[in-house]
């Protein structure tokens, strides 16, 4: 009887430990490199294999619930500066890049809780429509992530820590799909 009870206890302990282990893996994002690829400092999922890959499904449910398939949108996420530090509203970041061959593209800044960051400007994103370009061909742009107004293109970072910047490319060109890991993405630089 004692042996049986001990066996049940051990099994239960194993079950709980297993649940906690996976939960920690999903929450911490350990194993993120198994499901996302890198393009410079940006991470993206070249294939949203959510039906077959349970870890990817769990991770994407946590950070991007109801994300669309890669055939419709490519998502690129930036969570670190050029020194590998988490993005923080304690700093000002400058990003420079080129526009994308996609039907529509935008950059949205999220707080560590993956929601939009409260700010007085009520501004959360920059996109191909409201971005002020550096040239008449609307190719080059420069924008900032900053607590206070900075430059002509800026996204307020409020008081957020561990922020993430999400680039969405809706209906990107075949060339982008083919070179998703090498296309030119904005370079980030901490300037203050």
């Amino acid at each position: 009887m004692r042996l049986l009870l001990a066996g049940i206890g051990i099994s239960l302990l194993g079950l709980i430990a297993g649940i906690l282990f996976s939960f920690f893996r999903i929450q911490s994002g350990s194993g993120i490199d198994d499901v996302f690829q890198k393009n410079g400092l940006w991470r993206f999922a070249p294939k949203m294999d959510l039906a077959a890959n349970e870890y990817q499904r769990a991770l994407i449910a946590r950070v991007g619930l109801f994300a669309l398939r890669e055939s419709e949108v490519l998502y690129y996420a930036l969570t670190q500066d050029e020194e590998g530090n988490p993005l923080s509203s304690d700093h000002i970041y400058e990003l420079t890049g080129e526009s994308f061959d996609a039907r529509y593209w935008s950059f949205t800044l999220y707080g560590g809780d993956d929601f939009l960051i409260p700010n007085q400007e009520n501004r959360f994103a920059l996109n191909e429509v409201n971005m002020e370009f550096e040239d008449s061909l609307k190719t080059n742009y420069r924008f900032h992530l900053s607590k206070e107004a900075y430059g002509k293109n800026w996204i307020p970072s409020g008081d957020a820590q561990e922020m993430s910047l999400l680039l969405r490319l809706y209906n990107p060109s075949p060339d982008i799909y083919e070179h998703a890991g090498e296309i030119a993405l904005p370079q980030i630089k901490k300037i203050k």
Partner: protein
Amino acid sequence: MKKIGLFAVLFLIFFYLGSQMSLKYFSYVLYQVAKNKLGDKENVVGYGALPNEHSRQVVKPNPDFLYAVCFYDLKDGPVRISGNLPDSTYWSVSFFEPSTVNYFVKNDQEFASSRLDITLSTKKLNTKAGKEQIISPGEKGMMLVRILVPDPSPEKLAVYKELQESIKLQAMNLGG
């Protein structure tokens, strides 16, 4: 010594089961949490405003989009989804399983017109109703319509809002 070995094997087996179960059902739990936050209604379309910092039902909302959301249940039969959508901006209609797998997505350029007319069922229907027939892998799931608002000025936004709120889901009467 044998007992320790037996306990170790038991622990490892259940550890594996626990970790697999957790991975498998994590997304189902978040789906249900989102459903609860969005009012826990079925077969009723919800219309969101342009997302801002108060939009905390689903992570990573896109502030450039109006969303129309509907959690559906097809236990009483197929449903018909209709509405008028913009003809000059990106929009898409997507369907998700309770596991959060996106099993269907189609955008404005892939639909024949901006007049939405979809039948949603669990099996192929022998009916002429609906320009587009979508087969849901299960009785339950979620529909999400995204409408890009390139110009959020009050006048333009009002137009997009009206189109967003034209999206309806109704039970289908297949007759006899």
